[in-house]
Every structure is written in structure tokens, then in C-alpha cells.
């Protein structure tokens, strides 16, 4: 570990929640404007979380607390591994740990709402996980490595040029991972789509705050993945991130929630077809 790594880890652990919270604030503001409202201040997510931490601790079952913290830990670890430019598949597997503990925590409460939310979250994981692996395999086929550090060191073109279709697949996966409409199936942040908050129903007070912060890490991780598609130039990287995230917000606001019965087959067929098309592209170029 050199100094740069240490700085990267510290930044990942401490700056990510700030960035993630800000992104959430901007998200809410833009969403409000799209809906013709004025919207909350940009810092509102932070106020919300502070308020959550001041509330009474309430749980149905101690497992919820354990799972909330495991969810947080796994998400921090994914961001740290991303900052250390580690192996893409390893990062992916650690990401899955977070998802699994969120689900176990939701299943721990006997509430039918959170139970159904947990089942739906599992199906969302089932939907996006293969898609993300397909994207990573595409990156490997193009660059010859799963290690981010080696990709950054040895590959000198924006990945977006070689893997445009896989970027679309990633975008698809991100909507599902971030639980944005139309795939906010396990829990929705739109009051008009869901009154009882699915997988989060039984989390409240400080523990909901923990989940919220974990979600910020998740957002940073997702943006980091997008950044990988234009790693050669900082400006274009930022443009790519902003455009992608704005696209996600737009989709979030102009679509209505779909059922998992629609999501699963469509995301898989669409994702598979596009991935294979892109793989052929890579092969054709090599040959």
C-alpha cells in the first residue's frame, strides 16, 4: 500500500457519503423541477439523515440492526475496493453481500410488507447481477484484464467507444440497482407509486439512517462504474457521469412502475442480446 492508496481509501470512506448525499439532494431537486415543484434544498438528504439519527431506536428484531450495519459495511467495502482499483468481479461479489444482508434484514421482520419487499429485492438482484457481470466480461474481452488498475494503465481509449451497447446494458442495470422507476419494485422513493416502503418498511430511526448512508455509498459506486467508461479524460468523464445520471433521473420521472414479471424477462433478453452484439463487435475487431 502506498500513500496514494491510503489517500484513496480515506477519500472513499469519508468523501463518498458527502458526494452521495449531494447527488441525492440534486436528484430530489431535479425531480421536483421536472414535476413542476420548487423542491427541497440540495442539503435536504443530510438534514433528513441527521433527523433520523435523533429518533428513537425501534426494531422488530435485533437481526435488523445487524443486517443494516452489514449492508453499510459491504457498501463501504465496494467503494474502497473501487478506489483501490481492485478486481471488478471481486467488487461485484462484495456488492452482492450488501444486497443479501438488506434482504435478510427485511425478511427478519415478520411484516408482510417488508417480506414482499425482500422477495422483490431478490428478484431485482437476480435481474441486474448477470447484466453487471456481462458488462465486466465485455470490459475484460476488450482490455484483457479484470483489474481496474491494469485497465487504467494499459488501455488508452475511452471504453465507451468500444463498448457502447454494454454501457446501455449498464444503464439498464443501474436503474434496477438504484431502484429507480420503472424498476422501483422492491421499494420506491416516489410517494405516488408506493405508500408502504417495501423492503425498507420495518427500518426506522437511526437504522433507516444507516441504510440511507449505505445507499449514498452505492450511488458513488455506480457513478464510479460509469466513470470507468471514460477514464482517459477527467472532463469527459464528468460529462459522461452527469449525462448518465440525468438520464436516470429523467427515466425515473417519466415512467410508471412495472412489475417484476415484465422486468425479469425483458431485462435479461435485452441485456443478453446487446451484450452479445457488443462481444461480436469486439471479436470482429480482434480478428
Amino acid at each position, binding site marked *: 500500500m502506498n500513500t496514494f492508496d491510503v489517500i484513496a481509501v480515506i477519500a472513499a470512506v469519508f468523501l463518498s457519503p458527502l458526494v452521495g448525499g449531494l447527488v441525492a439532494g440534486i436528484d430530489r431537486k431535479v425531480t421536483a423541477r421536472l414535476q413542476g415543484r420548487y423542491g427541497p434544498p440540495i442539503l435536504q438528504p443530510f438534514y433528513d439523515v441527521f433527523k433520523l439519527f435523533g429518533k428513537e431506536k425501534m426494531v422488530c428484531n435485533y437481526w435488523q440492526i*445487524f443486517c*443494516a450495519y452489514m449492508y453499510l459495511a459491504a457498501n463501504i467495502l465496494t467503494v474502497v475496493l473501487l478506489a483501490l482499483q481492485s478486481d471488478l468481479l471481486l467488487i461485484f461479489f462484495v456488492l452482492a453481500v450488501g444486497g443479501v444482508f438488506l434482504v435478510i434484514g427485511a425478511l427478519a421482520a415478520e411484516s*408482510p410488507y417488508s417480506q414482499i419487499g425482500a422477495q422483490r429485492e431478490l428478484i431485482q438482484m437476480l435481474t441486474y447481477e448477470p447484466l453487471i457481470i456481462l458488462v465486466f466480461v465485455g470490459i475484460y474481452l476488450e482490455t484483457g484484464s479484470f483489474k481496474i488498475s491494469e485497465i487504467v494503465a494499459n488501455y488508452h481509449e475511452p471504453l465507451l467507444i468500444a463498448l457502447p451497447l454494454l454501457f446501455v446494458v449498464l444503464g439498464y442495470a443501474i436503474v434496477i440497482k438504484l431502484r429507480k422507476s420503472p424498476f422501483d419494485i422492491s421499494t420506491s422513493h416516489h410517494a405516488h407509486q408506493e405508500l408502504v416502503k417495501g423492503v425498507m418498511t420495518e427500518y426506522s430511526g437511526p437504522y433507516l439512517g444507516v441504510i440511507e448512508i449505505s445507499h449514498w455509498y452505492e450511488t458513488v459506486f455506480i457513478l464510479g462504474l460509469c466513470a470507468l467508461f471514460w477514464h482517459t479524460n477527467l472532463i469527459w468523464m464528468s460529462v459522461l457521469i452527469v449525462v448518465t445520471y440525468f438520464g436516470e433521473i429523467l427515466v425515473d420521472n417519466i415512467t410508471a412502475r412495472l412489475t417484476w414479471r415484465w422486468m425479469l424477462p425483458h431485462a435479461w433478453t435485452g441485456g443478453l442480446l446487446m451484450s452479445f452484439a457488443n462481444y461480436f463487435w469486439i471479436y470482429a475487431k480482434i480478428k
Partner: protein
Amino acid sequence: MVDVLIGVSILLPFIAGLLCFIIGNAKTRAAIIVTTGVVLTASALMLFQNGPCTYTPETLLGVSVNSIITFFDFALLFIILGIAFKLGNPLVILLTLLQIVPLAYFELKMAPHVEVAPAFYIDNLALIMNLIISIVGSLICIFGIRYMEEHEHHLHLKKSRQPRFFFFLVIFLGAMNGLVFSNSLLWLYFFWEVTTFCSFMLIGHDRTEIAIKNATRALWMNMTGGVAFVGAIIAIFYKTQSVEYFSLQNLINHSPEMTGFLLFPFALLCFAGFTKAAQVPFQSWLCGAMVAPTPVSALLHSSTMVKAGVYLVVRLAPGFQGTYLSTIVATFGAFTFVTASALAVNMSNGKKILAYSTIANLGLIIACAGINTPAAIIAAILLIIFHAVSKGLLFLCVGTIEHAIGSRDIEDMRGLYNTMPAVSRITIIGILTMMLPPFGMLMSKWMAMEAAANIPWVVVMVALGSGLTVLFWARWAGLFVSGPQLKEQELKKESAIKATILTMIRGFYPNAKWNDPASIKIPLVLLAMGAIVLSMAVPWIYTILVEPVVASYRPGLFVEPFKMGPFGLSSGVGAFYVLPVFLLSIVAYLFAVIASKKNGHRVVSAPYMCGEQYPDPSQPKFRSHLNTWRDYLAGNVYLQEFIGESKISYWINILSLIILIVMFGEVVR
């Protein structure tokens, strides 16, 4: 020394099995089983300490070993023929005759008394298998002692049938050890048939109608593999006209110009491996084997039987490296992985989930063998090790739970943590070691994926299958902890550190007693600890055990695919920091435990039911129409309408048959 150890590994179980069969006294039998287990474990460890070796036994009690094996080979086939006539099953009769006649022709006319030197070739792969069989297998047999007592108690048998049960259970271990040590194809075939026969007897042990039906299915499906095996033996001789290739080592390390001749026998042997490993379309025999008492399922699934199938394929893999056979084997394995995972998702029967997950993981191992790079072979061997431990553990857990609650349905395991905390905790450990980093199964899966990345359709199937795997495991683990907070679980005044230490030892529910007898507790605890400790030791297991296997496969050509670094393994294409991730996971775990055990004000509330919940939070009720209290319950999503077992099994079988036909079509051409 080596001869004694090999003799102990193979013959002791046969002798102990006979003793179990003769001696009616339960206590003596238990003592014999425990002693056999201990001796087998010791001999496996000593053999491992001794390192790779070869050995050719000349005579046993004055008779040539080769003749003994030939004699018993035919004796066994005739016994099976007799059973087939008794069952009145023309298919089994036909399949048995298809083995007896060609084998007799081979022995009498083609190549009488083939002597292969060395008869036993014990490299690191064989040593690893020997360790798994002797340790995990023995623990399962020990678990069986008490389990079968309870089992027969439930069945109200007049006369105990345990002698017969343990006879087959224990000799299974000997046959497996013989199978992995043998270098002679003919000897391998003998042990292969012994495992088929033992599994038939054990699956049908309870003699219910369904047990006999499923046992017969297991028999005929495995006999197809046996026919393929005999076919391979004859094909090798027919194509090469020499007995040289009856030595597995010569068969694998054949000269390049022989590849064309040997590809067909290789395909036949792989087919035999597929049937034994219950790959699609033969998955139904392993699922049907669930009717047997739990120790049988645990043994078949973890350390024996199905592992014989993947062992053979992994063993042969270097022999067909770089051929289209290899690619098709990879495709076939990956196809089994994704389809069996999909089938596991729509099961609510815990044992069937385990069964399909076994089939899926074996598929992944076979896919790795087919990918056939050094990294892939390493992944396959690591998968064999970790899968044996975790899956053996999970079967024993489900068996214990089944005896306690009278059901193996996972919906009935809802909230089991409140009533059976210890067993539930161990089951959750078993589940997590199957699916999450930093545990060994996932580590191996990572290696498999990186190895598969160059064959896009294989990696796609592995990716889809891996997503499905997470679904059914996570949901099962979650169900265990689903339930109200009990009064006994309320916190006492104790420091966070003390609470944490207690939690690590006794879980979240420290006052609960674990009442099971030692013969059930010890295997469960040892296997659970083994699953965790082995995962932590992955870098060392890799360097000491697995790497030499691959290095010996390709002397001279071998490039170390993974390097042992200060942080665990790293490879050319990726890096997996096992130890740091393990460390961080432990820190995260402790942190989470401290957070949830910390003293302080905390309200335990009932779940949200729109303000209509029952006053007592421990009762899942809500106020319904006419002011009545009604129970609420949520069930799992099993995706029946998409991938219902009855719906897709047909198509899975057809597709897998097509892959097999393509495999043979290509090879014959």
C-alpha cells in the same frame, strides 16, 4: 508404509462394513464406525504427509489383486443382474447385460489379465479427494449413528435394519478411496460400479414404494454411465490395439498424434462422469435420492458418488485439452449450472434446493474442467473441496431440523432461529459459505468466471446461474431469522465486548440450550468450523495442495496462474484479496454485532400493519373485517410461472440431450 495406508483407506471400510453387518449390538456398531472414521482420517492425513506416490499391490492373501478385482467385478454385475430380474425391470437387465457381455468378451478374447503399473497412482488430486472422503465422509457416518436411531424410532420398525444400512454406508468410503487411487481403468471401473450399487441399496433403504422406484431410477441412470465406461475400455483397446492406455496416466499424457483415436473414449468416459454427477438430463436420480435417510443424501452429495463423476472429468481434462470435446464439455457444464440453479429457485423443499444446488455446482466444476486452463482446473479442484464441506454440513443441518420440526419445507423453517438457535446458526453459516465472499465457494466461483471469460456463451450461463444462486440462498438464510423478538433475547446489562464475545460463541440468543447428542453436535460444529477455516486458508490450500496438481499436469508448460502475494492470491487477469477481505468482514461483523448488542434505550415493536396490529407483538395477527384477528403470512416467490420444474424440465432434458448428441456426433466424425 504407503502400502499399509492405501490398504487401510480401501480395505478398512470394507472390513468395518462387514463387521457392522454382522454385529447386531448398536453400541459396538457405533464404536466400530467411530473408530473407522478416526483411523481413516489419520491414514488420509499420514498419506497426505507422505506426499504423492505410486504403488502396485501384487497379491492379497496369496491371490493376485487383479484377479480378485476381476472376480468381484463380475460377481457384482451378476448380483445387479439378479436384482434387476427381481425388480422385473427390463431396462436394468438390458443395461447390465450390455456391461457383462462386452466385459466378458474383453476379458476372455481381447485382452485377458491386463496388468497396469502402477496400479495406484496417488498424486495431489487423489490425496485431496482422499482427505475429503475420509474426513467429511467419516463425519457423516458418525452423524448417521444417532440419526438412524431416531429415524427407525419414527418408523416403528420391529427389527433394526441399521446393520445393512451402515454396511453400505461405510463400504462406500472404501470404494471411493479405491476409485480415486486407481490408475488402472479396469480397477476404476470396478470401484465405479461398487458406488453405483451402494447408492442403489442406500436410496432404496426404507423400502417404501417411492424409495424403490427412485432407487431403480438411480440404478438405471448410473448403469448407462457404466455401459459408457465399458464402451470406453473396449474403444480404447479397439482403436489403439494396445493395453498401454489402460493406465489413466498414459491415457491423459498421450502423444499428440493419438488424440484423434482417444477422443471417442474420452467422450464416453466424460459421459459416464456426467451420469454419476447427475448432470442434466440425468438430474432426476439425484433429486429422487432425497427419499433416503439424510446421511445418505449428505454422503452422496458431498464427498462421494457425485464427486466421483466430477473427479473423473477433472482427472481426464488435460487429456483432451484444446479439442472441441473440451469446449462442448464446458458448454454442457455451464448449461447444467444455469438450468439446475433455475430449478433450485422454484423449490420449497429444502433438500431439493440442496440437490439442485449440488447439481448446479457439479455443472460448474465440469464447466471448469472443460475450459481446461490451469486456472480453471484449480477452480474446479477448489470447488470440489469447499462444496464437499459446505454441502455436507447443510444436509446434516436439514436432517437435524427435519427430525425436530417434522418438515423439510423451507417455509416451515420461518423463524426457526427462535426455537433452534444453534442449528439455525450453523445452517446460516453453511448457507453464507456457499454464496458470499470471502468464503471459499465464492472464491472458486470467481476463479471459474475469470477462467470462463474467454468463452462468452459459457460465462453468460455462469453469470445467469450465479444470479439465481444468490436468490435461493439469500431467501433461505433470511427465513431462519424471520420472527418476533423473544423476551428471552432481551438484553441484559453487560458490556458490549462481553456481549460480542458471547455472540460469537453462542449467537444472538445466548440462553438457548442445544440438546442434541454429541454424535450430532460434533459433525455439525466441525464441518461449520471447517467451512470457515478452510476459506481463510485458501492461499495455503492453493499453494500446498492444488497448485502441484496442475503443475504436474503440464510439466514444463506450466505457468503459475495465481501468485501467492502478501494479501492472498493474485492472478494475471485479476486479484482476489482473500485475507484483507476476510479481515474486513470480521471487523464489519464485530461492528454490526456490537451495534446490535449495545445497551441503551431501544423499543421492540410489532411490524407495521397500518395501525391494525395485534397488541402482542409476538403474534402475527391484524384486525380484519368484523373486528376479528386474523393471521398474516407472506410466502416466497418461486417464479413458478416462468421456470416451474414441470414446465422447463422437459425442455432442459431435450436441450441437454442435443448437446450430448453434438458431443458424440463431433467425436465420432
